[in-house]
């Protein structure tokens, strides 16, 4: 390029522009694509497939727990199912879905032609299918796949695990590399490709929250890579990082893991905050309340996330001082999180509300995520945590923030931007069915888990005492209904891609942002000339 003089390159561009930049057809289009929309689509489909695979595992778990006694899974297989379900949902469903949304939306929202590092973008997606093929293949090996919980506490994951642990470690490494590359791309794009005139304090909140998420990813994914590597060397190369007999400490594993793990929790929820902050104003036809406090709240949640990891470890025998420190820090997180919820409610207050499918999911998000926040606050109270910890109360808590939080936000995003992506409107009727089936069944699924936990039912057990039988049956029925409801979503998306009423550039009258200035679907290179932002 540098050898060409400007005149020549201009000629080349003007003559070969059209066919040079059109995507090749067939498989090669997807394999070699460097286009942010194609890669976004790949991420989103990948995430949905993983959601279904992880969901099938959840269904098996709920069948096993349908009644006391062995139903279909022996305990070893049950442990593999809970472990791989967790890993798939966290690393395969939720995180790639957000990366897919980032790919699709960030260039559109900031007025850029594409992501800043398109080839790395291709690479960061295409290593993911390999990571998950490796992980899933372990289930079919002698001794089975990982069976030590997605938190893989040592020494259960070292001396007491099957040999497929090595493959588990490699797959986590690949996922981590993919996440870091995705995060770098987001940061570089946002710093360099904003439309002229787009200042930091008028970035769309989805862009803000993703920027902060990307920094969290870069900070903690290497920590995860470190801890899995230590597990690998402890198991196969005779080191003793986590083995007291060799001078190590099994609790150190948990410190390192949760130093990654707690920011990871916010990695999975901050972009969701950004989505909800886009949707609620659009369907309230009113500007977002407290834009700047939203930004500051997100930053403070991100900073606090680094000093609260100990609240996952209150029962490990920490000294009193540490318990108090982590309790206070954890409680403080309720303040910025509360600010966000209050801001959303204030945005709705005296708005002009309508209830299209994205708004339904956004409202469900606010209510149900807040319930998850309440149980989080209860869990922060250290003495009470000794009664909640490792019971179904915790399972209820994190499914409220991850399923009715992160997953509902992803659904809301899909319903909000699907017309933009496909150029077609989708069936509101089907979407409403999907919403109501999901929101009812998800509560039948997760709400009774609070009570099971309070009654003392430990998590990760394949069989349980008789007093837990009735509620477990209800939970399982809710689970099956929730799982089936997601097939409606699948049908709706396929239908929407294949056809339907054409979507206008801006299908929602209250929507704001640069993405709505482009036609639906947007041109292959989103903004070839940067738009002017006032």
């Amino acid at each position, binding site marked *: 390029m540098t050898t060409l003089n400007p005149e020549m390159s201009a000629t080349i561009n003007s003559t070969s522009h059209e066919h040079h930049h059109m995507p090749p057809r067939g498989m090669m289009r997807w394999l070699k694509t460097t286009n942010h929309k194609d890669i976004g689509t790949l991420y989103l489909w990948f995430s949905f497939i993983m959601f279904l695979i992880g969901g099938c595992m959840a269904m098996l778990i709920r069948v096993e727990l349908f009644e006391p006694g062995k139903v279909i899974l022996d305990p070893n297989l049950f442990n593999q199912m809970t472990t791989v379900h967790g890993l798939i949902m966290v690393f395969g469903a939720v995180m790639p879905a957000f990366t897919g949304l980032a790919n699709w939306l960030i260039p559109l929202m900031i007025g850029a032609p594409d992501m800043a590092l398109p080839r790395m973008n291709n690479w960061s997606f295409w290593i993911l299918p390999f990571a998950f093929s490796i992980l899933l293949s372990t289930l079919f090996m002698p001794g089975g796949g990982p069976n030590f919980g997605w938190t893989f506490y040592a020494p259960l994951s070292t*001396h007491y695990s099957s040999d497929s642990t090595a493959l588990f470690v490699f797959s986590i490494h690949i996922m981590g590399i993919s996440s870091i590359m995705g995060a770098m791309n987001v940061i570089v794009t946002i710093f360099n490709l904003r439309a002229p005139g787009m200042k930091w304090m008028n970035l769309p909140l989805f862009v803000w929250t993703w920027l902060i998420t990307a920094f969290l990813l870069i900070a903690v994914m290497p920590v995860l890579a470190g801890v899995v590597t230590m597990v690998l060397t402890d198991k196969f190369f005779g080191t003793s990082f986590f083995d007291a007999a060799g001078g190590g400490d099994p609790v150190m594993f948990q410190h390192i893991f949760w130093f990654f793990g707690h920011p990871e929790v916010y990695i999975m929820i901050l972009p969701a905050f950004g989505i909800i902050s886009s949707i609620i104003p659009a369907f309230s036809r009113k500007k977002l309340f407290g834009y700047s406090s939203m930004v500051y709240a997100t930053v403070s949640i991100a900073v606090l996330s680094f000093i609260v990891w100990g609240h996952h470890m209150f029962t490990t025998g920490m000294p009193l001082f540490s318990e108090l420190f982590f309790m206070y820090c954890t409680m403080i997180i309720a303040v910025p999180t509360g600010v966000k919820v209050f801001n959303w409610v204030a945005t709705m207050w005296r708005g002009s509300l309508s209830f299209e499918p994205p708004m339904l999911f956004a409202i469900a998000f606010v209510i149900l995520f807040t319930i998850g926040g309440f149980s989080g606050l209860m869990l922060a109270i250290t003495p009470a945590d000794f009664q909640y910890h490792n019971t179904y109360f915790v399972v209820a808590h994190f499914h409220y923030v991850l399923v009715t939080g992160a997953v509902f936000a992803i659904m809301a995003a899909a319903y909000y931007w699907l017309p933009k992506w496909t150029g077609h409107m989708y069936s509101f009727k089907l979407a409403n069915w999907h919403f109501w089936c999901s929101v009812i069944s998800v509560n039948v699924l997760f709400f009774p888990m609070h009570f099971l936990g309070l009654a003392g039912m430990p998590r990760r057990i394949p069989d349980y005492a008789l007093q837990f039988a009735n509620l477990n049956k209800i939970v399982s029925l809710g689970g099956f209904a929730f799982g089936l409801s997601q097939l409606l979503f699948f049908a709706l998306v396929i239908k929407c891609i294949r056809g339907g009423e054409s979507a206008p550039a801006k299908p929602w009258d209250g929507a704001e942002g640069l993405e709505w200035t482009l036609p639906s679907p947007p041109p292959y290179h989103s903004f070839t000339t940067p738009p002017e932002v006032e």
Partner: protein
Amino acid sequence: MYSNTKRLLISVGLLLFPIFVEAAQLNMTKGVTGISHDIYHLHMTIFYICCAIGVGVFGAMIYAMLRHRKSQGHKAANFHESVKVELAWTIIPFLILIAMAVPATGTLIKMDDTKDAALTIKITASQWKWHYDYFNKGVGFYSILKTPQKQIDNQQAKDTDYLLEVDKPLVLPVNRKIRFLITSEDVIHSWFIPAFAIQKDANPGFINEAWTRIDKTGVYRGQCAQLCGKGHGFMPIVVKAVSGKEFDSWLKAQQQAKLVAAKSAQAALSKTLSKADLMKEGQNVYLAHCAVCHQPNGMGLQGVFPALKGSKTATGPVHDHIHTVKFGRLGTAMQAFSKQLTDEEIAAAITYERNSWGNNMGDAVQASDVHKVKQ
């Protein structure tokens, strides 16, 4: 139309009612200790605070959803910030949190004080059983799940205390301060007994402390709370709390029983049992202690627990076999059974393993053979 809606609501209500009744019985236990009462009250306070905030937040949302609808022609207002309001909902939650942190800190400090205990119990976890040692009293025993495999496999009706019953419960006195020292021999377990509000991890190579003072006699049940492998759901905790007097006489009886047991173990060394007797006892021991990993058919679990059928150990020199069972294999899930089983039981189990599932070594291992093998 109206009556239909009403009927629907009533039937949904009736449908949900049993769920509420069921749920109401499943609140956190008040427990039977001072600390567990404190924690119950902390739990209820924070719960009510959350409910109050929830009513406010969700109430405002629902009001807006009903009254500020576009379909009713409501026009959107124009406000989008207010320093006063935003400050208020930053500061007020902060104050509520401080009010909550104060009693929580008090309880936590109380829980941390393990001084001046009248009795110390050392709890050692291993896959998948608990060992209780009455410190300096010369009494200690394993506590193992009593529920038969047949109930788990649905071939037998389940007891009321299905999966929450053990062969020997931990016996403790009421109204005395009891200190627990908690550790593990293999992976991390967690000793969780809601009635005392104790959940403390058993970490291999480290010792954790906890304490309790039980107010009421009775039987209290809990379970291992930390994923510890295949048998995680099958290592319950049962505590029998008795009066101080009863406890003292129980302890004395245990000490005497231990002397008797030592004598009979000594006697067993000079006994020679027939192979048939050894096989019969061996099967019982094997099913109770070995089958959980190596499986009743001796096939193990491929890639996790080795098969004994045709294995090098079970069909090799008897000395190595005894050594493995007595002292375990370091760095694997194979435990040292010399502390859990008598020489006679080990001899019987080994005889059984060497002569079952097609293994055909023909030898009858005696207690004295086991006794001779040293580490």
